[in-house]
């Protein structure tokens, strides 16, 4: 509820709000009704389209959900590896950017800026399709060329994002932290590892969790590129067989929304907790990287 825009309402404003509520509700309802009626008209609510997804008695139900379940596992697996690698490399990039001198930093910053401007889907495309051409063939690895192409593509992009997040986190700490650590005789590296990074991670936790949502969503991009059996590609298989695209994609969207919504709420809860804890120094840094993803 926005408090900036209006006062507590008096009788006239309350009446206006009531009228607005009725009209607004009617408009929203009308739009919904039209959509539902048209979908019903086209038979989109027919049981035969929904039953394989919703009714355990249907003959296809078990195999459909086995596909979806496996797809979800593959999605989570690719996301988990990408996130772990991105966090690790991102932290290294952040540390390098903070420790290197002004000139030594230039090539690193250039690479970071280039990767930040690159569309993820193209990075994934290049990694899945072109890495084998230059001798990086993951065929013998667990998961094969699709998994690792996807993972490397996602990592290339997200490591610079995590790098920015961690850098912003370290920068948000009061200078005294570093100065005190150096004064007690810790080396630069020890200061970073023992004093700055742990606090930075704490501060940036909400931003990091929000970025997890992005990685999770971006795994589905591989559906346009390769043959990795994640959730969306499995959905494609299912709807091609059962001819129920709207129903299948609804279920897939709901799965994504359930996971991502939970993660988002989790990030918000942590942010609120940190704000309440009010450790004056390390206020949670506003996320400057847009968590937009695809």
């Amino acid at each position, binding site marked *: 509820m926005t408090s900036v825009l209006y006062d507590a309402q008096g009788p006239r404003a309350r009446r206006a709000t009531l009228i607005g509520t009725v009209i607004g509700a009617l408009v929203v309802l009308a739009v919904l009704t039209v959509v539902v009626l048209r979908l019903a008209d086209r038979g989109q609510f027919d049981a035969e389209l929904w039953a394989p997804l919703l009714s355990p008695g249907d003959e296809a139900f078990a195999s459909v959900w086995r596909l979806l379940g496996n797809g979800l596992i593959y999605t989570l697996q690719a996301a988990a590896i990408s996130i772990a690698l991105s966090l690790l490399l991102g932290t290294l990039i952040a540390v390098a950017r903070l420790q290197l001198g002004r000139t030594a930093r230039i090539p690193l910053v250039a690479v970071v800026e280039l990767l930040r401007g690159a569309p993820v889907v193209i990075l994934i495309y290049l990694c899945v399709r072109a890495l084998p051409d*230059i001798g990086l063939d993951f065929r013998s690895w667990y998961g094969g060329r699709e998994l690792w192409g996807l993972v490397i593509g996602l990592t290339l992009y997200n490591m610079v994002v995590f790098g920015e997040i961690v850098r912003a986190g370290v920068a948000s700490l009061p200078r005294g932290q570093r100065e005190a650590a150096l004064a007690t005789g810790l080396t630069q590296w020890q200061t970073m590892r023992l004093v700055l990074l742990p606090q930075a991670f704490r501060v940036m936790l909400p931003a990091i969790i929000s970025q997890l949502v992005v990685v999770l969503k971006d795994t589905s991009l591989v559906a346009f590129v390769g043959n990795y059996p994640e959730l*969306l590609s499995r959905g494609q298989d299912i709807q091609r067989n059962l001819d129920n695209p709207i129903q299948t994609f609804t279920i897939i969207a709901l799965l994504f929304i359930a996971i991502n919504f939970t993660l988002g709420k989790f990030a918000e809860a942590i942010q609120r907790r940190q704000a309440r804890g009010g450790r004056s120094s390390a206020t949670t840094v506003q996320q400057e990287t847009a968590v937009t*993803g695809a």
Partner: protein
Amino acid sequence: MTAVTDNLDLFVSGYLGSLSVILAATVASLVLGTVIAAFRVSPVPPLRAFGTFWVTTLRNTPLSVVLFFCAFGLPEIGINRSFWFFGVTGLVLYTSAFVCEAVRAGINSVSPGQAEAARAIGLTFTQSLGQIVLPQALRTVVPPLGSVIIAMFKNSAVVGAFGVGGDLFSAGTRTNSALGYETLPTFLGVLIGYLCITLPAAGLLALIEKRVAIAR
């Protein structure tokens, strides 16, 4: 880089095609996102609920799934248009949720004291909104909104991969599979094409950010 130089006209027309997707989606998603943001800050509960539903749904669904929904769903509710239309619509719907959140955060970032002071000196609702709240909100909104729009530029590649045709991504796939050039140089060319859009945009945004920056 013969893959690109041999097919320069294909790449140039793809570049222009991508720009047209971006241009259409920028205008439409800014308008739609602002309308949804207005819903979310309005005192009318059904509109607020609708706005919240809109943002929660679209922000948490992958763009690819939104695109599939548009391509399969819109014809079913009687909207039969070109694939280009479906692609851009999907991108606009998806981006509008992020635009909405950026705008809303901007409005909320104006401290209540500002509006209270405006009312205390006797400004009307429109005056206080137009002269006190919005000018400050807009300045706060610029950086996040800019990032959202630049992210949308990058996401236009997803629309290309989805297959709207006539854009940079499809120029790449054509050169790659139909004309038989190798993937790596072809798609590095595509990548550079997109960088020619996103990097200047990011530079421009940094300039604008500096100009509108305010000390609070």
